[in-house]
């Protein structure tokens, strides 16, 4: 009796839409976070200037994906939205504050010539970027870990620091590493000369950092969180996705050695999307696992908005999605290629 579209029910479609939007956000703002993470390791003011110019015209557009992702999650799965955000109160508030600092650091840095002024914003930009990547990972880690919920889907854990457990910290660190690898490749596409060769060294460090943290996190997850493996054991075909992740990651150093950074960027992007696909397969159709009593878990069905709303919103996405992609394409095309170091802009 449930309404379906091409054989799939609407909550499942919406799970895909929201997942796709957050994957888009992670890929796009991910390289901004990564570029920001490397920022404090640049020694010269001119390098920092170029690195900042590499993301300045487009980061606003990237942040839109967060706003849209949040809106579609709110509208599509309001029960999940309320529970997750209130349960993860502290990390989300910190996320907001770092989003503010990241944005104003980019905006304000070049508005004054003083050294101390620029240093201050360089640091705040860099630390904010790293913390944003870390906090996104921490929240994801908590979702994978599950949390105690009551029969009204309210979070019944508590306290300030509940969101920090070994697994969520590991996922957070892996997030930082992933985005720093991704951001290093983005900067390689946008820079030349000395900064370019410096970024090549950074990329090697970034790749190593990612492979180590990813391996540790995966092993820790497999040994301590049994429920993560269940869907894979039930459908062995799912193992294809982690295999693709492995191949995709392996491609990155191979392409980097040949200095094919355009393709390397494609593969870090694919890696991000595939890692989220691994998460999606682990969860579906659950959104938030109740760790005490599985009956109270939030699923895409008990959290979903009405089918009518989901249908209306599918219409929004069908009409608006191509528009958003068109705008992004236009802006990226306008600023394609290496950063021009002449002083343009406002």
């Amino acid at each position, binding site marked *: 009796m449930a309404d379906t579209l091409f054989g799939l029910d609407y909550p499942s479609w919406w799970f895909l839409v929201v997942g796709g939007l957050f994957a888009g956000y992670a890929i796009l703002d991910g390289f901004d976070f990564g570029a920001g993470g490397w920022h404090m390791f640049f020694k010269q003011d001119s390098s920092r200037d170029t690195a900042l110019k590499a993301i*300045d*015209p*487009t980061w*606003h*557009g990237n*942040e*839109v994906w*967060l*706003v*849209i992702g*949040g*809106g579609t999650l*709110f*509208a*599509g*799965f*309001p*029960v999940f*939205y*309320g*529970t*997750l*955000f*209130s*349960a993860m*109160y*502290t990390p989300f*508030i910190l*996320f*907001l*504050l770092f*989003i*503010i600092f990241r*944005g*104003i650091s980019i*905006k304000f840095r070049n*508005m004054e010539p003083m050294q101390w002024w620029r240093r201050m914003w360089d640091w705040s930009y860099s630390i904010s970027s790293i913390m944003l990547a870390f906090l996104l990972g921490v929240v994801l880690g908590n979702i994978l870990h599950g949390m105690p919920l009551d029969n*009204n889907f309210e*979070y019944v*854990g*508590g306290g*300030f620091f509940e969101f920090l457990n070994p697994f969520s910290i590991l996922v957070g660190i892996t997030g930082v590493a992933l985005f720093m690898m991704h951001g290093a490749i983005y900067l390689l596409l946008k820079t030349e000369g000395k900064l370019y060769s410096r970024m090549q060294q950074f990329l090697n460090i970034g790749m190593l950092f990612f492979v180590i943290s990813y391996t540790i996190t995966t092993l820790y997850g497999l040994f301590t969180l049994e429920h993560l493996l269940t869907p894979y054991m039930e459908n062995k075909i799912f193992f294809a996705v982690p295999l693709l992740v492995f191949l995709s990651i392996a491609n990155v150093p191979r392409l980097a050695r040949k200095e094919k950074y355009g393709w390397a960027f494609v593969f870090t992007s694919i890696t991000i999307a595939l890692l989220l696909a691994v998460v999606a397969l682990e969860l579906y159709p659950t959104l938030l696992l109740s760790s005490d009593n599985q009956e109270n878990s939030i699923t895409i069905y008990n959290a979903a*908005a*009405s089918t*009518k*709303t989901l249908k*209306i919103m599918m219409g*929004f996405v069908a009409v*608006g*999605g191509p*528009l958003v992609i068109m*705008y*992004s394409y*236009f*802006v990226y095309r*306008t*600023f394609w290629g290496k950063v021009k170091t002449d002083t*343009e*802009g*406002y």
Partner: protein
Amino acid sequence: MEVEILSRIQFAFTVAFHYIYPPLSIGIGLLMVIFETTYIRTKKKEYEVLAKFWTKIFAITFGIGVVTGIVMEFEFGTNWATYSRYVGDIFGSALAAEGIFAFALESSALGVLLFGWNRVKPWVHLVATWAVFLGSMFSAVWIVVANSWQQTPAGYHIVGEGMQARAEILDFWAMVFNPSSVDRLTHVWIGAFLAGTFLILSVHAYYLLKGRYVVLSKKAFKITLVVAVISSLAQLATGHSSADGVAVNQPAKLAAMEGHFEAEGPADLYLIGWVDKKNQEVTGIKIPGGLSFMLHQDFETPVTGLNAFPEEDRPSQVNAVFQFYHLMVAIGMFLIALSLFALIQWKRGKLFENKWLLWVFVFTAILPQLANQFGWFAAEMGRQPWVVYGLLRTSDALSKSVQANQVLFSLILFFIVYSILFLLFIYLMNKAIQKGPQSDIDFDEGSLNQQITEVITNK
């Protein structure tokens, strides 16, 4: 209880702070579009200078507007989880639509607006400027629709009971065009135009007083003054229409706005006053039966008063609602008088002769900002004790799992960060204004005269 108060203070503080910026972006955006379009059509350099200068100011307001805007989207989930679950279908849809149809447009085009002057053809840049402006106007549409639905819910039905109760969409267009959407949207748009235009008038009046960019500023001042005259008059119309709507749809709010307690009786209209809630009295200057006349064109027609509602169903802060509403109206009237007076002076050819008039314009920039804030405070406090009028109480809308110390912690953080942000905003605005348009062509009569004098004396 403590969590409720803290969460309400936090939301009010973050949203009020946010609301300094989007109206400025919309209002400055309107003039940016006018300046740049005029430049493309006439090819006159001074309009390009104006467009570029105001784009710089716009960049500051827009940047802060965006980063402080995401905060509210998250706060619905963090602090108002029960509300989020209850209204997600409807309120969430409007937020999602805002992101997809408005915010994406303005944020993408912003890159081209700010960094594209030398990268794209002039007409492409003009399209980007229009896109940013229209995007911000569309943003206002969805945000006001979402808020208006909280004031006058329509096109929904309630499913489930108790903690599981939720409002679901029955009729999408009835939800979008709920009884107060259109009135409130036009009121918000024009309020934003006023915030932007009076800032522009203020800055150019300041230049005129200092004898800087005189020719340029006279031109900018006149164009902007025309927009200000039209907007301030139009605001009277949308305000009146809004008040009529409130009388029909939210009688308790209207009664609080005028301090009208008597359940069914002719209502007075106060110019100024003070509400004594305990004794149900208002002291002040009034037009007896004025409110009845405004609504029904008759001084005797009864208007529903606060006493018609049970104590727990009406706003508790009657005096605050009264004062915010009256201050907003007073500012609106002052803006009409000021802009009309300036228009008359212009017709007499005396617009730039009165220094005091220019000084008044310099300081008036703050007033539309205050009016916008006061208007929202009246609207939101007047809706209490409901978060969704008649359906969901604010006290029931909280996140059950969040503790008071968490909210106190975030409130303090927001307070510190926003204080820094506000100081930076003032500092950077002041700097950009002091620096001025810095055009390579000198339109300045003053310095031109000076140059001529120098040339002559050297001879």
